[in-house]
């Protein structure tokens, strides 16, 4: 490795492409004619802006067809001190992309001595999603949400992506995955620009509960196993992953209690 490497830039992805192509798996030729085999899929993730930043959340269920593949899969990842990715789609490529983005951002920061701008990070992810397009055409779709705090503009920002790497900034909220539509409908009813952090956390849990209510592939809260959605916020102070106890408390004391009265989550 040492002085023999050809690559001399700041991108980890390019470093692998140039000097370590064996670490960059590509879709086997044989698949090109057939549909991809059945693999676990991650379902619902969402992100919303609030007064001081963004909240990102995801349920924990991965499904393989009609079966449960995993009950406690992680779909929300901290990519660096001020950004997060939430992923929906084929679980394998999704998790790999989240991991790769984290290494990419950290690598750039270490080589250059300062982090990328939030827009730069979002754009990098766009290229990674686009590179996955051939796999997406075979059914291995990766559609992430990217969110973070823009330290230059002093505001939380979030982006959604399509399979071609198309990148769309959302100014309010968005959700992705099989339960995404329900989650969006739920968020639409409660979102305001001046939501507090606590209100935003509650809105995120309500939206995931609504998604799990309407979509069989979205996991709800599993009290028996102690499995809760993963929720994180990002503000000027950085990313904060909300601990399980806090999530459990909001869920049991606010979401469940209200739904005994109004199961649809209404007022």
């Amino acid at each position, binding site marked *: *490795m*040492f*002085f023999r*490497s050809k*690559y*001399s830039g700041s991108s*980890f992805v390019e*470093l*692998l492409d140039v000097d*370590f192509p064996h*670490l960059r798996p590509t879709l086997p030729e044989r698949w090109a004619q057939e549909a991809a085999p059945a693999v676990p899929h991650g379902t619902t993730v969402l992100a919303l802006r609030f007064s001081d930043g963004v909240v990102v959340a995801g349920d924990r269920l991965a499904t393989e067809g009609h079966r449960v593949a995993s009950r406690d899969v992680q779909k929300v990842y901290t990519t660096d001190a001020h950004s997060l990715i939430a992923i929906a789609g084929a679980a394998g490529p999704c998790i790999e992309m989240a*991991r*790769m983005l984290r*290494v990419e951002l*950290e*690598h750039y920061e*270490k*080589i250059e*001595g300062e982090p990328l701008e939030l827009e730069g990070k979002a754009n990098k992810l766009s290229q990674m999603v686009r590179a996955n397009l051939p796999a997406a055409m075979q059914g291995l779709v990766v559609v992430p949400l990217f969110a973070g705090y823009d330290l230059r503009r002093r505001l939380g920002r979030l982006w959604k992506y399509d399979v071609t790497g198309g990148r769309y900034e959302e100014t309010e909220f968005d959700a992705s995955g099989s339960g995404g539509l329900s989650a969006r409908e739920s968020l639409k009813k409660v979102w305001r620009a001046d939501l507090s952090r606590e209100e935003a956390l509650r809105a995120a849990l309500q939206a995931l509960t609504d998604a799990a209510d309407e979509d069989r592939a979205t996991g709800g809260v599993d009290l028996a196993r102690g499995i809760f959605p993963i929720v994180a916020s990002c503000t000027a102070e950085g990313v904060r992953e909300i601990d399980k106890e806090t999530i459990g408390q909001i869920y049991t004391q606010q979401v469940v209690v209200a739904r005994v009265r109004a199961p649809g989550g209404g007022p």
Partner: protein
Amino acid sequence: MSIPFYVSPEQLMQDKAEYARKGIARGKSIVALEYDKGIILVAENPSQLSKIGEIYDRIAFAGVGKFSEFDQLRKVGVRFCDVKGYAYSREDVRGKALANAYSQAIGDVFTRELKPLEVEVIVAEVGDPRLVGHEDNVMYRVQFDGSISDHRSWCGIGGTVESIESYLKNHYRSGLPLGDALRLGRDALNAAANGATRIAAERLEVCTLDRDRAGRKFRRASADEVRAILA
């Protein structure tokens, strides 16, 4: 056609070593010290170009000598570790492997190339009490000819390393809090520079590997923080 003069291998190596030593002595020294929460690296560096850098979760780099050469080594180290951590696991990335790779690379240049690298580097790795077998701090020093040594408590590099070592031999105590460790580091650099006036806070580059931080332990102290600690 001219016939090249014969130069004995001993003479050749001696000349190269002298050349490298001279280059290194032109710059300022750097010291790394263990303190109660990890490792602190202190450099006298009035410029904006860093001599200390983050390599990986628990590993930091410091280099003296020719900036372009040691900064290249730093970047290669980041690539080496990031690829390793990506291919295997983050815990598989260890300071010893990196220091060995530096030793090989720098030693190779010293024997093969006409001009040796005018650099000396520290690879510092902070221990993680949660990982069995990885609890201890360790610092490696790699010299211009590729010779490598491991150090506990403190480690210095640069032209004035003897004075730094003799100062620390008398003044170092284990378990120092951050502020005391920083002052000690500054005083050691000061003693080595034979300076009557203390090095100003603005001229110090200070980074820590803080065991208590989650994930990436490396942290660069801002000028304000250094000033506040030294005030």
